[in-house]
């Protein structure tokens, strides 16, 4: 049987030349994402905003939101949001955080339970008090920072500082774009979103590290090859792996997206965007070419300029 070859052998795409497009494009997208974040904001879930989330299932037939809405809005709990969730008899009720501390949140739940009566079954009740929500948010932000920092330190030890910096720029770029995506789609931003962001961070780095590993190997082997050529060769050599890996990860994510249910839907959608779209693009078009600007392999230029003749003999092959 002939095996599937998604990427042909010995590709020679000039990825580095594309940087004149990819860098401005990424800069533009990042600015857009940041603008979105500040104008449109994130749809904070109760984990970070505090408040109450109740998922109920009506016992007889589809839920009549039009009837439930005035009942719940008449409880004096401020704005109560109702939303169909997955199935027609499944309703998600969001009650904003009540003024008056932790006890007030509990009273809100009791009121909603009283108003809905016996006509529904409670699938989920989540109440997050004002202090917990504040802590969860700061933990989340601190966690992201901490992760980036730890990974930076590790990369700095394993590679040179330029690689660590390049990886960090690439990663912050990924996170910014993903946050822009979350703002645009209005998915609930909660604890699971932080988990998604951290996983995207891990995956995207994973990809970047694989290419960097190859670049480092090439740097040791071809001392006189111009940087753009060397980077191009490295990306091309790892291209097949990048594509195959991303196909498998997408297949796994696709299964989660299609069959994982509403509860992890926003999680998988975010992952799909972050890992598959942004992560791959970044490692090829941002993380690698940026090394040119960060001065990886400088000091070799003098060597390259002098013996032009040797360069031909030093063309990259796929093996030493």
């Amino acid at each position, binding site marked *: 049987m002939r095996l599937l070859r998604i990427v042909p052998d010995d590709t020679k795409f000039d990825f580095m030349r594309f940087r004149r497009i990819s860098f401005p494009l990424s800069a533009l997208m990042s600015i857009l994402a940041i603008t979105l974040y500040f104008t449109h904001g994130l749809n904070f879930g109760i984990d970070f905003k505090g408040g109450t989330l109740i998922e109920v299932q009506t016992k007889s037939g589809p839920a009549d939101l039009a009837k439930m809405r005035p009942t719940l809005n008449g409880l004096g709990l401020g704005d109560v949001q109702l939303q169909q969730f997955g199935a027609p008899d499944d309703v998600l009720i969001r009650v904003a955080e009540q003024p008056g501390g932790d006890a007030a949140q509990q009273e809100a739940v009791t009121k909603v339970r009283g108003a809905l009566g016996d006509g529904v079954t*409670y699938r989920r009740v989540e109440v997050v008090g004002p202090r917990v929500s504040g802590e969860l948010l700061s933990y989340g932000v601190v*966690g992201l920072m901490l992760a980036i920092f730890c990974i930076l330190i590790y990369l700095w030890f394993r590679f040179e500082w330029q690689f660590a910096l390049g990886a960090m720029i690439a990663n912050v770029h990924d996170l910014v774009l993903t946050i822009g995506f979350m703002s645009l789609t209005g998915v609930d931003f909660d604890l699971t979103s932080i988990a998604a962001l951290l996983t995207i961070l891990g995956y995207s780095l994973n990809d970047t590290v694989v290419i960097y590993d190859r670049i480092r190997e090439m740097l040791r082997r071809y001392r006189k090859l111009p940087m753009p050529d060397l980077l191009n060769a490295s990306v091309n050599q790892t291209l097949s*792996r990048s594509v195959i890996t991303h196909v*498998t990860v997408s297949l796994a994510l696709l299964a989660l997206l299609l069959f994982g249910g509403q509860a*992890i839907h926003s999680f998988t959608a975010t992952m799909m965007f972050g890992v598959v779209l942004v992560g791959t693009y970044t490692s090829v078009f941002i993380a690698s070419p940026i090394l040119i600007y960060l001065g990886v392999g400088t000091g070799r230029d003098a060597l390259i300029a002098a013996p032009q003749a040797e360069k031909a003999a030093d063309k990259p092959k796929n093996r030493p």
Partner: protein
Amino acid sequence: MLYFTRWKAAAILLTAFVVCLCAVPNFIPADIVNSWPQWAQRHVVLGLDLQGGSHLLLEVDTKAVQKDMLEALRDDVRRVLREAKAGYTGLVVRGNSVEVRIREGSDAEQALSKVRELSVPLGGILGGTGQRSLDINMEAGNLIRLTPTDPSITERVRQSVDQSIQIIERRVNELGTVEPLIQREGADRILVQVPGLQDPTRLKQLLGKTAKLDFRMVDTNVAPEQATPGNVPPEDEILYSAHAPKTPYVVEKRVLVSGAELTDAQPGFDQRTSEPIVSFRFNTAGARKFAQATQENVGKPFAIILDNEVISAPVIREPILGGSGQISGSFTVQSANDLAILLRAGALPAPLTIIEERTVGPGLGADSIAKGKISSYVGAAMVVIFMLLTYGLFGLFANIAVAINVAMIFGVLSLLNATLTLPGIAGVVLTVGIAVDSNVLIYERIREEVRGGRSPINAIDAGFSRALATILDSNITTFIAAAVLFYIGTGPVRGFAVTLGIGIITTVFTAFTLTRLIVASWVRWRRPQRVPI
């Protein structure tokens, strides 16, 4: 890279086998597993989001703890100064300190040295920190100020949390639920998780009460209708009835007997009125105090007070000498039962506030499990097929390695008695992606080496040795992200971090050992002339 000594190969296979074996109890019905020895029973616990149940995060009111501490200190100072026969004025709690002014300058030094005895070293006998429980200063005008030190407050809060945990355990166990989890979270918080509990209303009622029970005399010299906080005698206070209408009572602050001296409390019915009641029994000391108090006060009313609310105020008809009695006061069967539970379990040292609640019904949990299963199976099937299409025989090797990898993840999770949540399942699915990636890295490298002109065996050898360095680097970065997630995360997120972290470790293990062993065995068996990828 392709040579394995016999014992090394055996060790690898044995490790993989044993770890996979640990996952077995998860797939066997619980009643069979329960008959096994304890060490063999370790299994994955389903998170509350999968099996349904209630999660409550409670916070101990540290302000109340501090207030109690200061009031007790004030009483201690009063006792010490009386014993020392030192005249004083203005003994009050002010801010975070207790203040007292010694009348005579001649008494001041002696009073100060006596008061200093109240400050004890912290940390018991082994306390090498040199810190004491109080800061004591004498200021101008013979004013002594006693301030509890921060470590002593921290210590007291810690003790309160410990006591609260014990009392919560007793209260929750009365609900007859399966395997409730009650544990400390941080300095002043307690996590209560009750699997299977659908409606936590009753649980919240049981946890929301401090259940401090006092028996005190009612002051009949003051008419309750005319009493205001301004005109009651300093040894009295106004309390209201627990049930509507809220009627005021003027009761003495002095406690005759407290709930701490109860040995038992049971719900029951009054023989004459057949109203629900709670009958109780005192310990010996409590019985003696109660007998004495009732003997002295026949014909007068006393109040039964729960959490500063008067449940009832019966008139003492005759001395109660037997050390037992009953409380009646507009109970329902349920509320009588709850009060009995609360009295048996004892009073909380400080009020608790619910600061987070998450309850999942059994229907949603079952749905989540079903969805988790379907998406895992579909995801795994797609990946397996894709790998077979891309790498053929080597794809099969990869699939075997990934399958063992997943089994090992469940083995390790079982060993740790870890909790599997829905995000945890997502973590497993993602690990499949990572595990496949390690194989892809190896195979692509082998292909490169073949194209570079190496002999098949040489290429495979070089492919492994070069790819493994990359696999290690890339997995360590992902592992760092998982570790941070575990560290900052709570509940479901932590579940995701655990499976992802364990998945990365098993992935590196299988890539370095199992995959290599499988390929090496194949090479030795077939002596291939070309690499089939």
